């Protein structure tokens, strides 16, 4: 299957997951919100843990089904991985969402906050890759 079709199909599955979480639990499928709630004293831990466990199980299920988990190798060394994680964590919490909460669920609701946040993080990601790859000539080229 062409990678683009597979990607669109993956997108549809993500959308179905978001719709399912909304129709059953009435929740936005924002990964940073769901997972960070586990660390920051949310009272409703059960469903959050269950969701994250499902998320982690998915590539393992794919591994069983088709012998390929789809997990790619990291493109940068451990110092950049550490810094990247910190920025992703801090930024998604400060900005109340990530690619899923703002990019998928928020855009689907036509939320102005989410549209702006998505524009900002995609642009800032593009600039970062430009600087790393084309100005500094590193960063997972």
């Amino acid at each position: 299957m062409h990678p683009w079709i597979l990607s669109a199909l993956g997108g549809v599955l993500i959308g179905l997951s978001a719709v399912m979480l909304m129709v059953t639990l009435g929740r936005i499928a924002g990964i940073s919100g769901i997972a960070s709630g586990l660390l920051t004293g949310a009272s409703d831990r059960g469903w959050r843990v269950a969701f994250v466990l499902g998320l982690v199980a998915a590539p393992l299920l794919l591994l069983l089904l088709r012998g390929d988990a789809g997990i790619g190798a990291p493109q940068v060394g451990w110092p950049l991985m550490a810094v990247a994680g910190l920025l992703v964590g801090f930024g998604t919490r400060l900005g109340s969402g990530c690619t899923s909460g703002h990019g998928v669920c928020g855009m689907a609701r036509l939320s102005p906050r989410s549209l702006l946040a998505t524009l900002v993080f995609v642009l800032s990601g593009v600039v970062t890759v430009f600087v790393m790859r084309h100005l500094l000539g590193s960063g997972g080229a």
Partner: protein
Amino acid sequence: MKLAMAWLAGLLFGLGLSLGGMTQPAVVLGFLDLFGAWNPRLLFVMGGAVLTTAIGYRWVLRRNKPLLEATFKLPTARQIDRRLVTGAALFGIGWGLAGYCPGPALASIGGGVASMLLLVATMALGWWLAAKWPAQARSTDTK
């Protein structure tokens, strides 16, 4: 029942990420590399996800309440502020550095790569730090 539904939603989400190519940082960085060998795959993931969610939400939110809970918990914030923009910008930098946003990072835990676990750990640290950030102080200031 709630836990089973949440687990299943997580599983579906993870399958979508994995099939979509989001758990391959090379693909993600290729999408962000607009001025290099641009890889549009992520656009198809986003398109499929946003369209499906938009259609589904229109149908779901006509209900008075979700199936297993008393109310829908939709975000209520409306203000466009520095916090939102700064957060999104910092997230984008981190995303562009390594090619992982939170979902794919968590879904990749099972791959057993040590530096991946490090990224997830510092991401958790970032969540914790940001929760300590003086947002409460600021909102009481302006009140």
